[in-house]
C-alpha cells in the first residue's frame, strides 16, 4: 500500500476507470492540458487523448447538460465543476435534469454520471469558491451525494460512484486535496456509498461529520480525550444514501451527539442529521444534540474565514456544552 494525498487518490481512481471502461469520459474547464486547477486530472489527457479528457467552454450548465446527453448515448460522463460554488450556474441541470432523468423517462435513460466538485474553506480563495452547498444537492431526489474524508475513501468511493448506475455528486475538499494523506490500496477496490465509517469510538459523545470536517472532529476528540472524555467520531461518507443505522448505533452507545459541518447552520445538513437522530435514537439521548456549523453569513473573505469555518476550539466548546448538559 502506498501513502497518497487525496488528489493523487482521485487521479488514480479516474485513471483506473478510464483504463478499465472505455465508456468513461471526463469533461470540464482546464482539465486537459492544464490537468485541472488542482491537478486532479494531470497527465490524463496525455494518456487517454483529448476525446476522453475534454476541455470544455466556460459554461457550467452545458458542461452538466451535455453530460446528460452523453449519458443518454450510453457513455459514463464525469463532468467537473471547477468549484461547487459555481454549481449554481448548473443547478437547474443537476437538480432538474440529471437527478430526475431516470424518473422522467420511466427508467429508459439512467444517468451513470459522476459530477466532481471541489468545495470548502481555509484556502484563501476569491468569492464563491469555498461555499459548502451540499445540502441543496442532498435535497434533490434522484441524486446521490458523496463526501469522502480520506484519500483511501476518495479512491474507493469515486470508483464506486463511477460504477453506480445513479448520478453522484462527488464533493472534494479543497483543503484536503494535499493535506489529507493516508494509505491507499493500489489495486482495484470500492467503498460503498451509504456506509458510514467509525473513525474512533467513544462512550461519552459522538461527533457526526463528513469530508474535511472529519479531520477537525478527530483533532477535537483527541483534545477532549486529554481532558478525560471518550469522544467518538462518525464519518458519514455520503449524505445520500444516509447511514441511519450507524447514526443510531453511535448515539445509542454514547447517548450524546454533536453534528458538525462547514456549511451555514440554518437548513444545513446538520438539521437533517439532528432530525434523523431523534427519530432513530431519541430514547438513548442523555442531552440535547449539539450543532457546530459555519455562521449564517455568506462565505467571508480570506482575512476572517478561519473564524467562519468551524475550528477545533469551537468544536471543543460545543463538546463541553453537550457533555455538561
Amino acid at each position, binding site marked *: 500500500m502506498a501513502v497518497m494525498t487525496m488528489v493523487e487518490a482521485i487521479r488514480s481512481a479516474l485513471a483506473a476507470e478510464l483504463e478499465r471502461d472505455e465508456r468513461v469520459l471526463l469533461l470540464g474547464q482546464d482539465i486537459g492540458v492544464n490537468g485541472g486547477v488542482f491537478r486532479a486530472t494531470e497527465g490524463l489527457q496525455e494518456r487517454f487523448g483529448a476525446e476522453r479528457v475534454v476541455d470544455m467552454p466556460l459554461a457550467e450548465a452545458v458542461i452538466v447538460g451535455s453530460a446528460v446527453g452523453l449519458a443518454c448515448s450510453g457513455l459514463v460522463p464525469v463532468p467537473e465543476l471547477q468549484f461547487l460554488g459555481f454549481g449554481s450556474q448548473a443547478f437547474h441541470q443537476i437538480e432538474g*435534469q440529471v437527478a430526475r432523468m431516470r424518473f422522467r423517462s420511466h427508467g429508459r435513460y439512467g444517468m451513470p454520471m459522476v459530477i466532481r466538485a471541489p468545495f470548502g474553506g481555509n484556502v484563501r480563495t476569491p468569492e464563491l469558491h469555498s461555499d459548502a452547498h451540499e445540502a441543496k444537492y442532498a435535497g434533490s431526489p434522484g441524486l446521490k451525494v458523496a463526501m469522502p474524508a480520506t484519500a483511501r475513501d476518495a479512491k474507493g468511493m469515486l470508483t464506486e460512484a463511477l460504477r453506480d448506475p445513479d448520478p453522484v455528486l462527488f464533493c472534494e475538499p479543497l483543503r484536503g486535496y494535499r493535506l489529507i494523506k493516508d494509505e491507499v490500496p493500489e489495486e482495484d477496490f470500492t467503498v460503498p456509498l451509504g456506509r458510514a465509517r467509525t473513525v474512533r469510538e467513544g462512550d461519552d459523545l459522538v461527533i457526526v461529520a463528513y469530508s474535511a470536517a472529519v479531520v477537525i472532529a478527530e483533532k477535537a476528540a483527541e483534545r477532549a480525550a486529554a481532558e478525560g472524555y471518550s469522544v467518538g467520531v462518525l464519518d458519514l461518507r455520503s449524505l445520500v444514501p444516509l447511514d441511519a443505522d450507524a447514526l443510531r448505533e453511535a448515539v445509542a452507545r454514547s447517548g450524546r451527539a454533536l453534528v458538525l459541518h462547514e456549511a451555514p447552520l440554518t437548513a444545513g445538513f446538520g438539521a437533517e442529521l439532528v432530525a434523523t437522530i431523534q427519530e432513530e435514537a431519541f430514547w438513548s439521548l442523555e442531552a440535547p444534540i449539539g450543532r457546530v456549523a459555519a455562521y449564517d453569513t455568506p462565505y467571508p473573505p480570506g482575512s476572517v474565514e478561519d473564524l467562519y469555518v468551524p475550528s477545533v476550539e469551537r468544536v471543543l466548546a460545543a463538546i463541553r456544552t453537550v457533555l455538561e448538559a
Partner: protein
Amino acid sequence: MSTLPAIGTDEPRCLLAPDGTVAEGHVTALDDAALLDAWRAMLQSRAIDERFFSLQRQGRLGTFSPVNGEEAAVVGSAWALDPARDWVVPQYRELPAMLRQGYTVTRAVQYFTGNPAGNFMAPGVNVLPYQISLAAQIPHAVGLAWGLRHQGSDGVVCVYFGDGASSEGDAHEALNLAGVRRAPVVFLLKNNGWAISTPVHRQTAAPSFAARAAGYGMAGELVDGNDLFAVHDACTRAVTRARAGEGPTLIEARTYRMGPHNTSDDPTRYVDPEELEARRAGDPVARLRRHLQAKGLVDDASEEVLTAALTAEVDAAVAEAEAGAPPGPEAMFDHVYARPPQRMAGQRAAATGEAG
C-alpha cells in the same frame, strides 16, 4: 399583412407558395409516397389536437399544448431524419416528429393524463422525453450527438425549441458548444411568434434567429416554417452536412401558433383577431392540400375518409390508455434510483403498504 411574423428584414426561404404552387426549378426530395405520408402525419396531428382538447375539457386529460399551425415545421424536419439512426429531442409541441420515430399516441395520452409511463420511449425509439423546462433539452441534444459520434455512429440529432426558449442561457451555451465540438445537431428553432403572450420582438432585436448561427460558427438558415418543402429541404441539407462531420446547423422555421399556448391559455386576451386571421392564410395544412389536390393525389372525399380513420385511431389509443389500471403509489418511487437509498425504500413501503 404577411402570413408570417416578421422581425427585422431577413426574408424566409419559401418553396411551396400559399397557393400550392412550387417555386420554379425546385424538385422536392419527397416522392409521392413520402408526400402522402407527411400529409397523413399533418392531418393526424390536427385530429389529435382536436381530440386532446376535447378530452382536456372533459377532465380526462391534463394540460396540453396543441401543434396547430406548426405541422409543416415539425413534419418537414422529422421527414428529413432516418428514425433508425437519427434522434429527436423534443420540447413539448412536436408530437408528429416523436410519432415518426416510433413513439405512440397511446403513450402520449398516458403522458398527458399524468401517467409516468407516458414519457417512456421504448428501446429503439430514438427520442428523449418531453421537456417542460424550456431550453434544458438543448444541451442534452448536443451531448447526445457528441456521444453518438464518439461511439462511431453517424446518427444526427434534431432538437426542437422555440423563439421563447432561445432566450434561455442553456440555448446559448448549447449552441456554442455544438459549434466548438462540430456536433452533428440540427437546431430546429420554431419561431411561432409567441412565448405564451410575449411577442417575438420582445425576445430578440436581431434580424432573425438564424442570423445567430454565424456567432456560433455554424450554418444558419431561415425558412418559411409553414412550407413543408422549404423545411424539409433545409433539414435534409443540414442532416447531410452533420452526417458528413461538417457540424451543426441552426434552422429558424418561421411559423405561427394558430391556437392557444396550452389548454389553460386564452389567447384572445393578447392576440389581435385581425392578425390571427391574416396568419391563417398561411395555414400549412391548407397549403399542402392545395398542392396535393392540384397534383391529383388527394381530393375532399379521400381527405374525409382519412380524417375519420385517423380520428378513430386516436379514439382507440385513448380507449387503450384509459383501460389500463391507473398508477398506484409505487409510481412515485419506481425509477427514481437504480439502487434506491434505504430511506426511500422505507418510504416506498410505507406508501404502498408493502412490507418494508
